[in-house]
């Protein structure tokens, strides 16, 4: 894992000192709120409905145990004993007091963490595949490049006043777990004739106008990554629209100019700036890569694991659902669900964070990951240790066996916390998960992604959910729109709106009809919700969602 250099350390400490002085000046009246707001936002400090909120970056989703322990300390000391993991591999603390925020940042700096550029019109936290460095299908670990991008983008003087925020995601696997086609720039490590490079995707995004990113370069040589990314951001920084906030993201720029024109401009800009890159970026990358060397995996037999599977059905069910193949013999990737039925998606208590940190220390080569699906990952666990890991997770109420299933729901904070929200998300997620559990249909339903956003900004990724739910304010009442057929993977697709929205009391029964309807519609037990939707199209799903309309249409046709 990357360890801060003296430069990083000094930079982060200086930013903490700056914010401390800014907070003091705001409190003593030397700064107005208009002056202070952009300064606090540069450090991820928002004012929400009920309190301030501090958003802390987990760069490319990677944490060590000391960092997770520190997040637990923050939750306990400055918050109400919990934290909320987000869809961009950040953690949010919902109740800090303004005066104590600099102390929080100072505590974070002790373990090499910060909240810089987790807000504002800058390049945000660079996100990555949460199985990076562990996945069996991976070509190369994307995290060294993600770290290079973090260093390059942090306080980059050209990119502090962009037309709008800018998000980069990277994966090293052909199977996209990082939603790269929904980012401003998506990067995928590829190999052609034994040579490594990047497929570069640009102009993806969710929000009010969802778009799937377009390939701007299908094979960028490894060494050109930084100047090429800089060229993209630079072109957009010049021609991106600053006249209208809703048209400012690069997806609109790409849409309005066309990908060919953007490519032409990027190529021109790239040629212009390339000579300025002396190769120092590649030297830095080499030293970062050395820090991401794979851990020393052990060899042990897996008889204990097999025996535990036979002896304990609950362990078997959990290991069937929450494990992913690891690249190393005998190892598994463990996904810890933060989606216990009825709980808030993405929330972990300080105590749970400490348990996860301890498990990472003892069983996962000191590593943890945060997924964009709001779960926590132990990336390197030997199968022989899994029974112990499971037992500890169960004692901490963290052993829910539902990864990838209907109750593994993404939900943004919604109007329970967020000042931008137009409706609540969390209670809808809680009710759907509780209902799915009560009906005992979860395992029968199989792979199903339900994603909920509490406003059009789509932090809950509803556009790319197999079932997406968007909460809106319709004439002063919460109203929920359903989209169907979205896909967040390498076969990315934006879901289609199913029809009129549902009230807060109607939405959960509507989702239930949809799930039960799918069980009737599928061809075989193997056909997933998304496959069935793609085979049949929206009509039969709409018919189960809107039985009244379907009956009326049937009558009219008769």
């Amino acid at each position, binding site marked *: 894992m990357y360890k801060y250099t003296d430069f990083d350390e000094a930079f982060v400490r200086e930013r903490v000192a700056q914010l401390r002085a800014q907070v003091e000046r*705001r*409190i003593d*009246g030397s700064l*107005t*709120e208009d002056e202070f707001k952009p300064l606090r936002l540069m450090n991820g400090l928002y*004012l*929400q*409905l*009920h*309190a*301030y909120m501090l958003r802390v970056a987990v760069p490319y989703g990677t944490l060590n145990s000391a960092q997770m322990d520190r997040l637990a300390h923050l939750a306990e000391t400055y918050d*109400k004993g919990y934290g909320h993991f987000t869809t961009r591999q950040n953690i949010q603390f*919902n*109740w800090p*007091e*303004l*005066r104590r925020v600099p102390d929080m940042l100072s505590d974070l700096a002790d373990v090499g963490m910060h909240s810089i550029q987790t807000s504002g019109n800058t390049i945000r936290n660079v996100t990555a595949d949460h199985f990076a460095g562990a996945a069996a299908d991976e070509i190369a670990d994307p995290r060294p490049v993600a770290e290079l991008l973090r260093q390059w983008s942090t306080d980059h003087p050209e990119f502090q006043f962009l037309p709008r925020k800018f998000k980069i995601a990277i994966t090293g696997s052909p199977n996209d777990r990082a939603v790269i086609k929904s980012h401003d720039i998506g990067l995928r490590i590829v190999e052609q004739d034994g040579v490594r490079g990047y497929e570069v995707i640009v102009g993806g995004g969710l929000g009010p106008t969802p778009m799937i990113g377009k390939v701007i370069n299908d094979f960028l040589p490894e060494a050109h990554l930084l100047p090429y990314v800089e060229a993209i951001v630079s072109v957009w920084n010049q021609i991106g629209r600053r006249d209208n906030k809703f048209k400012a993201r690069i997806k609109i720029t790409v849409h309005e100019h066309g990908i060919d024109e953007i490519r032409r401009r990027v190529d021109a800009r790239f040629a212009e700036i390339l000579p300025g890159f002396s190769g120092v970026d590649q030297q830095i990358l080499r030293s970062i890569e050395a820090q991401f060397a794979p851990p020393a995996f052990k060899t042990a037999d897996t008889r204990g694991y097999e025996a535990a599977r036979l002896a304990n059905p609950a362990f078997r069910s959990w290991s069937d659902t929450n494990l992913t193949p690891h690249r190393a013999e005998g190892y598994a990737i463990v996904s810890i669900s933060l989606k216990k039925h009825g709980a*808030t998606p993405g*929330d972990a208590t300080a105590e749970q964070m400490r348990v996860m940190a301890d498990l990472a220390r003892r069983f996962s080569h000191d590593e943890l990951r945060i997924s964009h699906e709001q779960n926590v990952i132990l990336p390197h666990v030997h199968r022989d240790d899994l029974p112990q890991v499971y037992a500890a997770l169960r004692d901490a109420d963290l052993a829910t066996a539902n990864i990838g299933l209907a109750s593994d729901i993404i939900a943004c904070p919604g*109007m*329970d*916390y967020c000042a931008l929200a137009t409706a*609540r998300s*969390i*209670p809808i997620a*809680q009710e759907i998960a509780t209902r799915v559990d009560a009906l005992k249909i979860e395992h029968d339903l199989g792979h199903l992604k339900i994603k909920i956003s509490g406003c059009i900004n789509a932090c809950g990724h509803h556009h790319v959910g197999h079932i997406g739910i968007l909460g809106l*304010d319709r004439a*002063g*009442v*919460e109203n929920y729109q359903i989209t169907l057929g979205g896909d967040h993977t390498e076969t990315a697709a934006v879901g289609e709106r199913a029809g009129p929205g549902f009230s807060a009391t109607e939405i959960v029964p509507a989702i239930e009809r949809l799930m039960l309807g799918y069980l009737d519609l599928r061809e075989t037990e193997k056909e997933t919700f998304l496959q069935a939707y793609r085979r049949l199209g929206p009509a039969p799903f709409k018919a189960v969602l809107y039985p009244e309309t379907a009956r009326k249409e049937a009558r009219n046709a008769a």
Partner: protein
Amino acid sequence: MPRTFTPKVVTANRLLEGDAVWLTANGHWSPRMDDAELITDAGTAELRLLDAETQAHLVVGAYLADARPDAAGPAPTHFRESFRTRGPSNYAHGKQERDHV
């Protein structure tokens, strides 16, 4: 004919804690909406908001929110404002926490 004025309250968040507060008739900020002054005409609303905006050392983001008279005092008409009087729905945190103590 002038448009009917929907009664309003002035509300904001406290600078230090960030919690929701409402402007009372005697010019203080209360953590309870029912303590607020219910403003029934546009002129007063504008004046009170200007007054609130001069109190940047105490509060952030003052605005006028629709309200209706209730037995205990002004009450919210929109669900967002209603949540601000209570706190989130997933935990008994925020104002509802204090109310339960």
